[in-house]
Every structure is written in structure tokens, then in C-alpha cells.
């Protein structure tokens, strides 16, 4: 007897949410919901990572919780939370499962860009969709362009229709999205974002992500072959960088929040395994948790994590100031402090996830525990953009009074 393959309908791409999302009304509620959702996501985080089990059901619960809509402005029916809150929400989720923390990264970036460059009708329509539970993915980066900021994907306007052709890589969230924002350049080199329905003809999302970390983000490729969308569904994204806006710092602070979350998760696990570790034979101690050398390592991680969290909060406050007053000075200030957050969160995520295994001892590397995922996730996610140039960004402002360039990576 032959069996035809069956496909779980809950794991099929959908152009719309299956249920309306809860609408979060305040910053405090956002934090409370994030903590509750994070508890849920922590339960099977290691299992999902080990099996590379794509988080279809978890993402449904995530967006239905209302957390994907918390940055929708109050004028459009959302909570319009501060970036202090948004970055904390991302860190909370990322501590539980950093792939799930990363998945809305570009969604929130698109919401920011929509608010800055979208027309009134576009904002009303798409903010309403997000409040209903729609998820944006992304098809921005390209593997073959010279710089991350340059695109070969073309967008051509043909009357009231836009036509796109190209190939994208590292498309976090695209597989699970209801709408896939695609970045393309027009004939004069301006970057636009077309909001493409997930089931649009010519749009192919390829689950080709095989990174050893952030395994369930499905950050694979997207092929765009003659995709046609109404011109009204195209946002002039370039305008967010033609003048000073908070768009770049917003994009970056979410990165730092993910890494801070990884560090938190790794530190919490470090405490757990270090309490269970055996004492070293030469120490003369009865218990591993009495080990003064181990305690000092924990202390080192503790203050560095506190520092990363304190700077992340400062960075988010600077982003909030840049949102309120998008002057050249404010935006540069936000980029610089967010750059600091990127440095400190990268350092502690890598350090904590490595010390976790050192303090846990050999028993902690048992694959059944999956504790290596913290280092794999930290190493992978912190490669989003080279942190060595953030030290430079900070120093150049201070030493040479040169402001950061305006793009999505600053």
C-alpha cells in the first residue's frame, strides 16, 4: 500500500492570520505578555533547536499574543510602546528562545519604515493588518552584492503596478510571514519596499538556511520572478535614509536586544549547571558551588551582563528621543549608543555562552541538554554585522566628530 505524503495544515504558509490577535494596550501589558509567552517558549527550546523543528505553532501563539503589534502607533490603534519596552520584550523572548526573538526583528523594522515613509492610506491599511495578527517577514539582503546596503533586485513601475525581479538571502521570517516585504531598487537607484503577499505568484521562499545557530529562523532564500503588486503596496523606504530618521537605530537595537537575551538565557543556565557541578579534586571543597574560582567567573559574567543591560536601556532611551525628534544630532546619538549596546551585548553573549560550558563541566556538553545552542546562537546572530566596526563607529564620533552613516546597519 502506498501512502501519499500528508502535510500538517498548521505548517502551511498563509496569506492571513488564522485568528485575530489580542491587542496589547500598554507598555506594562507588553512586558507582562512577553514574560508569559517566554515561559511557554522556553519549554521546548532545546528540542526545537535539536530537531530544527520550525516554530509554526509557536509563531501563531506569538503573534496572536499581540506582541507583534506593540509598536503600532497609538494614532492607528496600537500601544505605540517605547523602544525601551520593545527592546526589553525582544530580550525576554530571546532569553527563552533566541530564534523566536529574532523572527520579528525585520517585522518591527518594516513597521518603523512604514511609519516613516508610508502614505496615510498605506499606514492605515497595514497597521490595521498588523493589529489583526499579520506578520511581516523580509526579503532584503542579497548574497551577491558588494555591500550589504546595495541591491541588485529591481523594481519597475508599470502604471499602477510594480514588478520585481531578483534573488534574496538571509530572509529571516519570510517562510512564516503573511506578507513578505521585498527591497528593490528603481531606475534611479532608490530603494523601495514592496509588501508582497506570501502566496503571490512568482514569490518563492526557499527553506535553505543551514546555519549552525539560530536554526529555526529559516533565514533562507527568496526568489522573486516577475512578482507584480499594486504600486499602492510599495513603500518608498529610501526616504528613511535620505534625511535623519530613527530607522537605522531601531533596526540595530533589536539586534542588540536579541544578543542581550541570549546572554541572559546563557547566564541563567550557567547558574543552574554550576550549582550542580562537582568540586575539583584539588580544591578540597565538598561542593562545586563553593569553588571560589568558579564564583569569580560567575561574578565577572554578572557585572558584564548588568552593563550590557544598562547600556541597552540607555540606547533604547536614545532611540525614543530620536523618534520624538529626528534631528541629525539625535539620530547620530542613537546610532552611537546603540553601537555601544551592540558591542557589549555581543561580548557578553559570547562570553556567557562559552563559560556556561566551562562551569558546567564535561557533563554539560551532553547533546541531550542542548546547552551548546546558546554559543551557536550567539556566534551566529552576532554576525549580523561586524561588531569590530561598532568600536570604530563610536570612536569616530568622539575623536573625529564623524557621525555614523545612515543605513539600516547603524
Amino acid at each position, binding site marked *: 500500500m502506498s501512502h501519499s505524503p500528508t502535510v500538517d495544515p498548521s505548517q502551511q504558509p498563509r496569506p492571513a492570520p488564522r485568528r485575530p490577535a489580542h491587542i496589547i494596550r500598554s507598555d506594562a501589558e507588553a512586558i507582562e505578555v512577553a514574560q508569559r509567552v517566554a515561559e511557554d517558549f522556553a519549554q521546548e527550546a532545546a528540542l526545537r533547536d535539536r530537531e530544527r523543528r520550525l516554530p509554526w505553532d509557536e509563531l501563531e501563539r506569538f503573534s496572536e499574543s499581540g506582541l507583534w503589534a506593540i509598536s503600532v502607533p497609538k494614532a492607528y490603534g496600537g500601544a505605540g510602546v517605547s523602544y525601551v519596552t520593545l527592546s526589553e520584550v525582544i530580550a525576554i523572548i530571546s532569553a527563552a528562545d533566541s530564534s523566536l526573538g529574532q523572527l520579528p526583528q525585520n517585522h518591527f523594522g518594516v513597521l518603523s519604515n512604514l511609519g516613516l515613509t508610508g502614505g496615510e492610506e498605506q499606514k492605515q491599511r497595514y497597521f490595521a493588518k498588523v493589529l489583526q495578527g499579520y506578520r511581516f517577514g523580509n526579503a532584503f539582503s542579497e548574497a551577491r552584492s558588494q555591500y550589504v546596503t546595495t541591491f541588485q533586485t529591481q523594481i519597475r513601475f508599470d502604471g499602477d503596478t510594480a514588478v520585481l525581479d531578483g534573488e534574496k538571502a538571509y530572509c529571516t521570517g519570510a517562510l512564516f510571514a503573511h506578507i513578505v516585504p521585498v527591497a528593490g531598487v528603481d531606475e534611479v537607484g532608490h530603494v523601495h519596499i514592496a509588501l508582497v503577499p506570501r502566496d503571490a505568484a512568482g514569490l518563492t521562499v526557499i527553506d535553505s538556511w543551514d546555519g549552525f545557530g539560530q536554526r529555526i529562523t529559516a533565514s533562507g532564500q527568496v526568489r522573486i520572478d516577475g512578482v507584480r503588486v499594486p504600486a499602492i503596496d510599495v513603500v518608498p523606504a529610501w526616504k528613511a535614509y535620505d534625511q535623519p530618521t530613527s530607522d537605522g537605530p531601531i533596526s540595530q537595537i533589536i539586534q542588540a536586544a536579541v544578543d542581550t537575551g541570549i546572554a541572559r538565557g546563557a547566564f541563567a543556565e550557567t*547558574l543552574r549547571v*554550576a*550549582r550542580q557541578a562537582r568540586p575539583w579534586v584539588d580544591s578540597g571543597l565538598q561542593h562545586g*558551588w563553593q569553588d*571560589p574560582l*568558579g*564564583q*569569580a*567567573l*560567575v*561574578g*565577572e*559574567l*554578572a*557585572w558584564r551582563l*548588568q*552593563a*550590557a543591560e*544598562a*547600556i541597552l*536601556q*540607555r540606547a533604547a532611551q536614545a532611540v525614543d528621543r530620536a523618534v520624538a525628534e529626528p534631528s541629525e544630532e539625535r539620530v547620530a546619538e542613537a546610532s552611537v*549608543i546603540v*553601537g*555601544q549596546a551592540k*558591542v*557589549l551585548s555581543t561580548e557578553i553573549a559570547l562570553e556567557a555562552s562559552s563559560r556556561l560550558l566551562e562551569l558546567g563541566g564535561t557533563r554539560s556538553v551532553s547533546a541531550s541538554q542542548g546547552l551548546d545552542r546558546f554559543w551557536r546562537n550567539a556566534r551566529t546572530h552576532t554576525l549580523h554585522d561586524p561588531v*569590530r*566596526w*561598532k*568600536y*570604530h*563607529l*563610536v*570612536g*569616530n564620533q*568622539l*575623536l*573625529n566628530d564623524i557621525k555614523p552613516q545612515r543605513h539600516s546597519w547603524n
Partner: protein
Amino acid sequence: MSHSHSQGRSDLAHARHVEAALLDYLRGQSARHEALVVAAVGDLHIRIDAADALLERANTSQSTAIAFRLAAAEAARVAGHAYFELAGRSLPRPLPDAAEPALLTQRRLLGDHYLNGAALADGQGGQG
């Protein structure tokens, strides 16, 4: 204010003093635009701002006070290293105002607190 807290402020002030001297020196040098020099200046500034951010929280608990103390010490250490590397000289760090637990002891006490819930006595990290 405890000795540790006071010493943390002293280290942070020293780091800022060295940074200012370093900037003065570098602004007269063509190397001010070299990537490695610029990044080293950024690295130092990040350590100073991290300590400053922790100073804002240092009065909330003994653990935050120790965290500030250790961050300030790192800022001072990185400042000294950067000045030596980039200016070829050293600037003397002021002598401590008063005795405090050694930094490595404070690091261990903080770790014992997180790992085992050990109480941090007043003066180990110091509230202001």
C-alpha cells in the same frame, strides 16, 4: 558612601581624565583617522559609558554597587592600556583613598551572591 563606591568613582574619573588626554594627543596626530586607532578610542569610550550607566544603578543594591565598581576598574584599566598603546606613555592612576576588598574578591563575592544567594554585606560593594 562606601570605600568601594568611592573608589569606583575615582577610577571612573581617572578613566575620563586619561581619555581626555588621549583625545588631546591624538587630535594632533595624523593617525587619528586610522581604523585601529579610532576603534581603540571607541573601545575605551564604551567601557567608560558602561561604568557610567552602572553608576546610575549603583545605589539600588549591593550587587549593582559591585557591578559598578568592577566596570569602573575596567574603564581605568582599558584607559591606561589605550594611552600606553597610542601615546607610548602612561598616566599614573591616583592612589586609592582608602582600603577596599581586592577587585578579585569583589568579583568572587558577586559570583557567590548570584550562584548561591550569599548576602552581600554593606561595604563589600557599598551603597552610596
